[in-house]
């Protein structure tokens, strides 16, 4: 039978991801890391990796374990791997953060902590790639959205390998001119492959299918989507191809990155037109909050692209990279994540609690699990806070920045509370939830849901 089943560990991934986001936002409110510290200070590296690995990557992995089977209409292969991967990634992240803390003498840890953390991350993400890769490989030929995921996973591989190389150099385990030169020049490649390749490209691919699915838009394979796939892949290949230049401190590095930026911007532009077309062609006129809130994320992606062009044109990219990364990570990736979580948590909870008795007794709709009018303002507050915080970084107002991050933290907490209410069936009318056990907030169901 074609179809996918419920991914058991996805909600555990989401819960861990949300905790990392809340911790990262709290640290920023307290003035930890950039802009109080330098952009390459260990404190900033702690923040960046807490957000990139803890929040965004765990979110993405949890979502992919559920949605890759939907994309390819086949069950996930290697079902035992998600909990193993989660444990390895969490341990790896902790070791990595401890290693960074050791670099700035916040705590005393042996220098090997960094590469050990990196190794655990390689193992954890390796398990993710193995499980998803096998599932995708078995489903060839792949539809377009799934091909985005393949490219995203390849970028993830590049990201973790570069990261582990840096960790080895920083700990003194790997030496030589080339290794040192890679550490000095290769950080942008690591960041671009991670934020641009792994997260953005994968999110783009999944969004094509999710937007069409939840808004009932036609799922036609557009020529323009092929162009996004080709241009985006080319941009990532250019970034990866810059690695030898970074190792030799070659002159070609800047040129390759500029070419990658141009093709990447082209891919983003065509993607934007595809998204507008999906929203316009939707059959479901009264769209749900997850689709409305996602518009804020698309706006943030557009703002990031425009900011990148403006910074390149004025030669301020180096000095303002923090602001660009902030709006990209929290506005685009984080905003899209929170918006889609609002739907996915309700949908998975419905599957877990009510699907087994469908047709046997009256069941609520997925929409009965959420309270959109009360949740909507918090998404608005979240995006407003991210926007103002970014502006503060652009005009050097560190205290105001912390104030707006505080607002962002408050909005995130309110949205997380809505996730909890939906998960615990607190929005479902009592007569419809009578007789149903409330599921565990974030642990998998005891019995397997088919």
């Amino acid at each position, binding site marked *: 039978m074609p179809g*996918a089943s419920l991914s058991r560990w996805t909600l555990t991934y989401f819960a861990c991801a949300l905790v990392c986001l809340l911790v990262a936002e709290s640290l920023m409110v307290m003035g930890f890391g950039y802009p109080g510290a330098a952009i390459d200070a260990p404190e900033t590296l702690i923040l960046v990796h807490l957000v990139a690995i803890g929040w965004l990557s765990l979110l993405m992995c949890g979502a992919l374990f559920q949605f890759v089977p939907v994309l390819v209409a086949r069950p996930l292969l290697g079902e035992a791997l998600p909990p193993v991967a989660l444990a390895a990634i969490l341990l790896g992240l902790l070791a990595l953060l401890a290693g960074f803390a050791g670099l700035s003498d916040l705590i005393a840890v042996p220098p090997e902590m960094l590469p050990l953390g990196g190794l655990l991350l390689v193992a954890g993400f390796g398990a993710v790639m193995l499980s998803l890769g096998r599932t995708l490989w078995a489903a060839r030929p792949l539809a377009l959205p799934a091909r985005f995921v393949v490219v995203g996973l390849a970028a993830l591989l590049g990201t973790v390998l570069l990261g582990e190389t840096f960790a080895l150099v920083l700990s003194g385990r790997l030496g030589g001119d080339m290794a040192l030169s890679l550490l000095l020049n290769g950080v942008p490649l690591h960041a671009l492959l991670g934020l641009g390749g792994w997260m953005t490209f994968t999110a783009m691919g999944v969004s094509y299918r999710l937007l069409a*699915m939840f808004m009932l838009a036609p799922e036609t394979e557009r020529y323009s989507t092929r162009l996004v796939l080709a241009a985006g892949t080319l941009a990532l290949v250019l970034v990866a191809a810059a690695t030898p230049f970074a190792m030799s401190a070659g002159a070609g590095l800047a040129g390759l990155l500029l070419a990658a930026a141009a093709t990447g911007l082209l891919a983003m532009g065509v993607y934007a037109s595809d998204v507008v077309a999906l929203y316009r062609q939707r059959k479901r006129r009264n769209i749900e909050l997850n689709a409305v809130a996602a518009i804020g994320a698309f706006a943030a992606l557009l703002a990031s692209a425009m900011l990148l062009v403006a910074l390149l044109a004025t030669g301020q990219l180096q000095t303002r990279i923090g602001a660009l990364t902030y709006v990209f990570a929290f506005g685009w990736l984080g905003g899209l994540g929170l918006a889609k979580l609002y739907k996915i948590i309700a949908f998975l909870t419905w*599957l877990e609690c009510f699907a087994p008795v469908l047709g046997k007794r009256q069941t609520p709709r997925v929409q009965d699990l959420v309270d959109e009018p009360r949740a909507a303002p918090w998404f608005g507050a979240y995006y407003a806070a991210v926007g103002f915080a970014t502006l503060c970084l652009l005009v050097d107002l560190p205290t105001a920045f912390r104030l707006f991050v505080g607002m962002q933290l408050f909005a995130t907490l309110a949205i997380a509370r809505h996730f909890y209410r939906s998960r615990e069936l607190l929005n479902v009318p009592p007569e419809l939830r009578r007789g149903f056990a409330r599921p565990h907030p974030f642990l998998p169901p005891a019995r397997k849901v088919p």
Partner: protein
Amino acid sequence: MSRAEDEDLAGQVREALKLVIDPELGQNVVDLGMIYNVSVTDRCVATISMTTTTRGCPATGFIRQAVEDRAWSVEGIEFVDVQLTYDPPWSPARIAPEIAGLLGR
């Protein structure tokens, strides 16, 4: 007579399926146009051809099972064969006119 009985039973099965809702749209699968065909032969064998709004949707197995269970519940039905098809794919045009405003205007 048996043909009329078969048709009557098919009508009963169709009516029974109205208790199965699509969790996303909140309406029953019959009015949403997801049940392509219901036929009964030999006064006891029901064959149902159905689809879902999205291919690969994780709720598919549950909806199919619910359709099978409901058909079984009709008195006289002894065997149920539910065939899942995506040819032709479901489209909102299949929604019954009575609930056509469901998706908004």
